[in-house]
């Protein structure tokens, strides 16, 4: 039943043109980048922190959940409104409020598209390093709420490492501002860190103050082709042992390569088991060149059949476009895919890949492996057809087994996608009961009535 009183109050609070109630509109706000979905009762498109606060207050008054979202490209189900309530989209809060060239900061609204921020700061010679593959279809707010990573994390760190301040709407509708432009700040608890990765369960992030760096002036990108996957995964450590910290160190396996090639015809080799994409960057051209040469030498020594260094910006962009398209292009192989996000210590990568391939062989379902090999963050993607119940049951077992592999190798469930609902059943095993209890108490303190994105991250009691 539609909640008429709630809808009317929302319309009065932020304007009827920002409130959407038809079944078709609710369908549009029912999904994210996974195969899960559930209908909200209403979707809203606020344009200021004050409007967000009004919405959250109304959610409290009517005792309905409020689920914040950006562009809903998440891969953990974190922004799906399970159980209805208000889908609160921050996409119209998309203004870059300030780029401070002296202090190297950007102050932005949560709905700014990550790629738009990247290009805006790069025009001024500055650089926002976090680079989720979804940079064109995800927002800064969503990146912070899920602490998104990306290829460049190996050298530059994840989204959370760039958050200096936040504006957050709390569960009672108060607007909290934390942090600031001072680089060192140890006054009180680090609340920025608390909200980073909280997936909309502790507050709604509406603005962020982000740290920038100067743009590296030189970049070299190499593609190394490995006939044996095992050699590719060993090479990752060999490169770092050689004293080079590449900006990125990405891996994709045979199936991933085939999918991209079918989708984009970029001329990738189809007869190798793995590709590494390795990039070095910096402000000294010679150093950058020297590093990529070292990388190429190490790759050849550890079994690469060929190493090609991109000569032009077009060639480089082509490689990155290929890497960014791996995940979406898997849909060519099967109607559904479940993309995992485990991390293991770097030295355990070859063993992790071996074990995951064995699981795939055991169940007879393809598992594609690609990811940020440099930081041990792998994305095994299980390909299946959800309409086939037997396959779906297998997938559920495979997920458990992949997590077990990660934990056995001293890794964890998620490196950059977040917990959402998909990994929620496994969180206790990953964190242990005491850590979980502390986290529950934090949630209860900030959202005593449980209206903020309920059912996410922390499992029910």
């Amino acid at each position, binding site marked *: 039943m539609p909640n008429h009183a709630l809808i009317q109050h929302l319309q009065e609070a932020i304007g009827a043109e920002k409130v959407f109630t038809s079944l078709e509109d609710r369908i549009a706000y*029912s999904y994210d980048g996974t195969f899960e979905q559930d209908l909200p009762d209403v979707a809203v498109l606020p344009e200021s922190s004050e409007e967000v606060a009004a919405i959250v207050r109304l959610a409290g008054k009517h005792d309905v959940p409020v689920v914040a979202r950006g*562009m809903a490209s998440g891969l953990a189900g974190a922004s799906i409104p399970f159980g209805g309530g208000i889908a609160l989209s921050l996409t119209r809060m998309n203004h870059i409020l300030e780029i401070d060239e002296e202090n190297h900061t950007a102050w932005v609204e949560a709905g700014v598209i990550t790629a738009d921020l990247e290009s805006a700061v790069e025009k001024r010679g500055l650089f926002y390093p976090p680079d989720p593959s*979804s940079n064109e279809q995800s927002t800064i707010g969503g990146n912070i709420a899920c602490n998104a990573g990306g290829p460049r994390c190996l050298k530059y760190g994840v989204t959370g490492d760039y958050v200096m301040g936040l504006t957050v709407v709390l569960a009672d509708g108060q607007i909290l501002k934390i942090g600031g432009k001072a680089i060192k700040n140890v006054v009180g608890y680090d609340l920025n860190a608390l909200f980073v990765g909280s997936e909309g369960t502790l507050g709604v992030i509406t603005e962020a103050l982000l740290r920038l760096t100067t743009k590296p002036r030189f970049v070299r990108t190499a593609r190394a082709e490995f006939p044996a996957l095992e050699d590719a995964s060993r090479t990752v450590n060999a490169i770092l042992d050689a004293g080079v910290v590449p900006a990125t160190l990405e891996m994709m396996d045979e199936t991933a390569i085939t999918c991209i090639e079918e989708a984009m015809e970029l001329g990738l080799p189809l007869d190798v088991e793995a590709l590494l994409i390795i990039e070095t960057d910096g402000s000294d051209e010679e150093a950058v060149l020297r590093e990529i040469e070292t990388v190429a030498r190490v790759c050849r020594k550890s079994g690469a059949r060929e190493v090609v260094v991109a000569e032009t910006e077009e060639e480089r962009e082509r490689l990155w476009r290929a890497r960014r398209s791996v995940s979406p292009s898997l*849909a060519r192989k099967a109607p559904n895919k479940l993309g995992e996000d485990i991390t293991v210590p770097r030295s355990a990568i070859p063993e992790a890949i071996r074990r995951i391939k064995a699981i795939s062989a055991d169940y007879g379902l393809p598992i594609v492996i690609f990811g940020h090999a440099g930081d041990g963050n792998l994305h095994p993607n299980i390909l299946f057809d959800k309409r086939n119940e037997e396959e779906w049951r297998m997938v559920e077992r495979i997920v458990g087994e992949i997590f077990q592999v990660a934990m056995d190798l001293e890794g964890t469930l998620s490196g950059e996608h977040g917990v959402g609902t998909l990994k929620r059943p496994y969180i206790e095993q990953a964190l242990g009961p005491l850590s979980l209890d502390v986290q529950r108490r934090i949630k209860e303190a900030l959202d005593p009535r449980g209206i903020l994105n309920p059912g996410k991250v922390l499992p029910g009691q």
Partner: protein
Amino acid sequence: MTEPIDPPNHPPVERPAEDDYLHCIRCGLCLAVCPLYRLTLNETDSPRARVAVLRAVREGLIEEPSDDTAARFFRCLLCGACTFTCPSGVTVDRILELTRGEMSDQGLMPEPLVALGDRIAEGHNISGEPNENRLMWTDNLPSPPKGIGKERAEVVYFVGCVSAMFPRSYSVAQSFVELLEKAGVNYGLLGEREWCCGYPQAISGEPDRARKTMRHNVEAVRAMEAKTVVTTCPSCYHFWKHTYPAALEEEIDIDVLHATEFVADLLETDRLPLRDDLREQTVTYHDPCDLGRKSGVFDAPRRILAQIPNVTLVEMPENREGSHCCGGGGNLESLDPALSGAIAARRIQQAAETGAKTVLSACQQCERTLFSAARSERIRVRSKDIVELVLEATA
């Protein structure tokens, strides 16, 4: 931005959309390139949402489609940016065309499009005027074009409804026939024997009506024993070239060329002598969706510009396959002129940012939409069809 890759193979008509929508994995890449979503920032206007609504119809979550359901399929430019970018190979614009048909069969076609389809079926053009008026654009030329009233011709210039019936766009057809005559091309005009190409009906979901008009046009060109049809309208071109053979289920033994391809050849074989005293000018070029992304014609207009002295081309960042629709696609203008205008405003802004004083296109619809946007936004960029520039440049 999107880099050049081959345009996707638009499958021939009638490929069942049945399974295609299932391949959408909701990654959201289409949101980044959809001109409508980028304007409204409302998920409901995204290609991904349209596919989700279709899925809800198929799977019964929407038990009985309403006008509001149908609107999700009609409120779209069909510019194909999403289809082009989709790594899962979902042909969103094709799916929408077919679904518009389904909606129309259920009586859910929006009123302005019903009226448009009726006008074409009854009067054979989109304007509602009698089809005899198809040559009125020739009235104020210094002398009547040689192509009028011909029984036979090597080339038929298929003028298209807009350039033939809307005075605002007469100059496209006028400039093109002047070029044909300067180059001594043996061409003919169909006059009232030319009917609407059928595209507007097809994308409103009336394939049967569209087929009737297609059949007529093919017969009319065959009657002239012409080997080649050339169009200035990219939509006529796209439809003739890529849809006619499949929809009519036959090989069509007629070469279909767009005016840009035809003129590029004339220039490169020195059949159109050019002035050398043309003033220095900087232009940008807007790739029409039907010509570029949907038909793969990117080079011909650029080859033309390379031939014209004193003209410098500066590209907009969103060019070629990544071109941003002018706002005039998909019959959206008939449904929501304000929305169409707002999208056009984005594009003219992009043109202005290049510093060019002229935005060229190769489409009378793009030309008109961009012209109106420049006016309403008070942006000092002239909008012109590329054949108009070529005519100015000829000796």
